[in-house]
């Protein structure tokens, strides 16, 4: 019996050799090494977006702050962010939205603009709420894709978020949730996650971009090199947008040899913000201004 196993192992290894050779010969159409189970490309690893999408998905110039007020010669950082100076400013971006702008209905656009004005009270990121999809992908912290023979799961460092990813469609989500219900499938070498059951309370970025609980997000993860994935998310939500629209961006492998997901339980970090006023002995609440 053991001899048979050894012979078969040798055969399997030989086939791996040939397959890797095939991948290396490709001329532009990158063929990734196969992952566990030998069928689908290997997406295992620690990945991270490297862009400004979490500030604002749309094309934008740099802004003085994530939270602005009117100044004598134009917008200035508001009182809550002014002391952070350049740290609270918004870096510029050509945007990740295909076509440049998000196709809001007029009503939904008005809500977005209101959201932007009231960012500091409304953005769920500030309260360490689960980021939702697609925002979890481009939060400025890494995530790990775990891909077994059949199962897929993604663990995000930010707020320790995880998702419910099914290999077989279990039917409609029983209840809306922050990270939604995802069903995985493969189209050639692309992992497709179809996400429904998303609660309306998550945002898409720090710029007030929002959605309803009718949103469906179809995410596509395609290896484009040993250390890169192309990420695309098509967003459909007839209550908020006039048509489906798409964001796309590369995701980068974290190359540190010891890259791993660490603890970022920010819940503890926002207790003072959310509950500080109800302490028995409250600390000073907001920074005193000089004079």
């Amino acid at each position: 019996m053991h001899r048979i196993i050894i012979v078969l192992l040798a055969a399997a290894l030989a086939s791996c050799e040939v397959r890797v050779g095939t991948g290396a010969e490709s001329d532009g159409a990158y063929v990734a090494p196969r992952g566990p189970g030998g069928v689908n490309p290997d997406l295992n690893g620690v990945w991270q977006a490297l862009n400004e999408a979490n500030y604002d998905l749309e094309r934008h110039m740099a802004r003085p702050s994530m939270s602005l007020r009117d100044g004598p010669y134009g917008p200035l950082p508001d009182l809550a962010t002014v002391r952070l100076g350049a740290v609270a400013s918004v870096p510029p971006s050509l945007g990740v939205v295909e076509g440049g702008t998000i196709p809001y209905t007029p009503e939904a656009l008005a809500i977005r603009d209101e959201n932007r004005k009231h960012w500091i009270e409304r953005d769920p990121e500030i309260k360490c709420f689960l980021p939702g999809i697609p925002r979890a992908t481009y939060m400025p912290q890494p995530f790990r894709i775990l891909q077994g023979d059949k199962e897929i799961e993604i663990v995000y460092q930010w707020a320790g978020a995880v998702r419910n990813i099914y290999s077989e469609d279990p039917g409609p989500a029983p209840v809306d949730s922050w990270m939604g219900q995802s069903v995985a499938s493969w189209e050639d070498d692309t992992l497709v996650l179809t996400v429904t059951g998303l609660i309306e309370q998550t945002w898409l970025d720090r710029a007030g971009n929002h959605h309803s609980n009718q949103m469906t997000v179809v995410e596509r993860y395609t290896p484009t090199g040993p250390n890169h994935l192309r990420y695309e998310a098509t967003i459909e939500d007839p209550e908020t947008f006039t048509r489906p629209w798409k964001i796309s961006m590369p995701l980068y492998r974290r190359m540190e040899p010891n890259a791993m997901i660490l603890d970022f339980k920010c819940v503890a970090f926002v207790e003072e913000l959310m509950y500080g006023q109800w302490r028995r002995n409250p600390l000073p609440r907001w920074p005193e201004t000089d004079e």
Partner: protein
Amino acid sequence: MDSTRTERAKSQRAMHWVVVAFGIAAAVLIVVATRMAWGEIPRTADGKPDLSGYYDTATITPLERRGDDEFLTEERAEFNANRAAQGLAEGSADQDPNREAPPVGGDGSRGAAGNVGGYDSFWVDPGEKNFQIDGKYRTSIVIDPPNGRRPPITDEARQRMANMYRGMRRQNDGTAWWLENDGPGPYDGPEIRPLPDRCLLGFGSTAGPPMLPTLYNNHKRIVQTPDHIMILTEMVHDARIVRMNSEHAPDDVRRWLGDSIGWWEGDTLVVDTIHFNDTPSMRQASRNLHVVERFTRIDENSLLYNFTVEDPSTWEAPWTGEYVWPQTDEAVYEYACHEGNYSMGNILRGARRLERDAMAAQAETSGDE
């Protein structure tokens, strides 16, 4: 992409699939052969026991033995199961929507604040069965010490607990009784509340390690890759990522669930966890906690979960427990605790209100004199 390149890519892909198909066929044969050799448990393509799936770890067997017997009789286990099922069914029965409110301060029966009304059975899921290993029902999860109880805690731990809970332990009786004590009260601020109240960890060491059965949300999910094994605990969406054949991270990187590395010993996954922060999920344990867990597939449908706990700052000796994790068709759902944590604000505001009432009453009394 022009059509020639598309065609070339297609033929490359076709070649690729032939090769992959051969690889799969070989792998399948290996799996079949090894299953014949090693017994009927599911295995991954690389021949390791396949632990992936969903598990419901609920059991009514307690952590520690209550009597002297090591095992339950078959009749007793059946009686326990019936009683548990009956209790859950009774507690889940429809209630009269027009019933009277409970008396102020509660009716004095078991339950929070004299049972003013909290969870009924709909909200809990503690399991209905004692677990069985080798056809026998143990009376405790703890198997070593052989008396089924954890070793005594150290003087150091006793002192630590006493300091932590000084002036804290008293039922909520609707008064600001803590004003009569020196030092901090139990509702002074968020940090003084237990970790589950703060939505930082589930209760009852559900995410552990050691991962123990608790009142509800006992579901786990394991996703297994050759290099990493994720163990997700539903409450509070806590994922441990076990790094296989790796070394521990530096010891100044402390983790809520510790730093876990793993390796295979035959068909058993061994997970070694150290570097906890000051407050591990396991009650009483300190940052010096060291847990070694062993996951063994005992059949197609279950895992044996065995663990050894060592913490010289807390227990006088290491102790070991084990219980069965049956696989389930049910999924793990999102446990978004913090996002809906109205309790923390209400607990603190309630306490401030009681303090104000107490001060006002005191002022009135001294005014009368």
